């Protein structure tokens, strides 16, 4: 827990960069389009945020409980470093079916890493959620692009989570060989 708190504080600069970029963009909108437009965007985004909060809270709680309830040995066996291609495939299927947004997915992926999942399966999981997640494709992508485009895009993306997982395993082996740490949590 102490480690986690330190991690959050040490990357405060990233929040600062985003905050200043956002502020600059907000001022630009205000100057270009006036106060009404700037306020309209703010109201819309705050509504979006309020809609996100319940899912975000659920994601944090799921991650906290999963870390405590899932036995390490099971995670290590199913998606650990010895899990091979099958582990990548399992991670890919999990990523494609798990509901929720990035606020659910990253805590869960982090929890799996703590429990002994290997970096390849964690990358395959995140890649699959991003590219194959039905939730996202259905809610956000389909209205913009239509079924034919989305269908082809998903078909083309099918091998990518496995490929990303294999690349991550290679990268982690390379880093460890060069004397780097194999700690990814």
């Amino acid at each position, binding site marked *: 827990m102490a480690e986690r708190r330190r991690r*959050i504080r040490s990357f405060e600069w990233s929040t600062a960069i985003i905050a200043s*970029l*956002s502020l600059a963009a907000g001022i630009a909108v205000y100057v270009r389009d006036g106060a009404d437009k700037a306020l309209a965007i703010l109201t819309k985004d705050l509504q979006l945020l309020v809609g996100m909060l319940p899912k975000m809270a*659920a994601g944090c709680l799921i991650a906290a409980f999963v870390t405590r309830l899932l036995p390490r040995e099971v995670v290590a066996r199913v998606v650990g470093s010895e899990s091979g291609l099958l582990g990548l495939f399992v991670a890919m299927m999990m990523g494609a079916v798990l509901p929720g947004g990035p606020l659910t997915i990253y805590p869960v992926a982090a929890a799996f890493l703590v429990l002994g999942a290997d970096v390849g399966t964690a990358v395959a999981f995140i890649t699959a959620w991003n590219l194959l997640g039905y939730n996202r494709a259905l809610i956000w992508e389909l209205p913009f692009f239509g079924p034919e485009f989305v269908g082809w895009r998903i078909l083309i993306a099918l091998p*990518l989570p496995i490929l990303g997982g294999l690349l991550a395993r290679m990268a982690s082996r390379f880093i460890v060989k060069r004397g780097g740490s194999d700690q990814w949590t």
Partner: protein
Amino acid sequence: MDLITVISVVIAILLWLLVGVLALIAAMRSKALFREGAFEGGRDFVVLIPRVMIGVVGSGYLAAILPPDLIAAWIGPNSGFIGILIATIIGAATPGGAVVGFAIGAAALKSGAGAPQVIAYSTAWSLYTIQRLLNWEIHMMAPRFVWMRAAVSFPLPILAGLGALLLGKP
């Protein structure tokens, strides 16, 4: 309520059902386990709120000042591999948020961008938009894992774009 709101509510309900099941299992194992889980989950949530707020409000303003015409001009159907590469980089630079990348991708497609380029763009935006890495992922996972994941994911949108180019679809 429109369909999207309904789906969103259903997903929230499913997630909370999952929370309920997990909390129940934890409580049955031991009270301490339940308390620890609830406390840590709640604390993570509270710590994340201001960061996510900046991210959500910020991406709204960033999207409003982006020049869509310029984006469409760079990634037309005849731009080939270079267009795919450009689309990948623009995808990474496009702010996160739920719809920004899809909205711009669809607009670009309508104003003459090529399908392989748009696939590379939306894949890059989905996998490693810089703003989402900095806003969300880095708070929830170890920074070196985040950078490693972004690095190994770099070629994936290019491969997706090339795949679409070779298939001649969509």
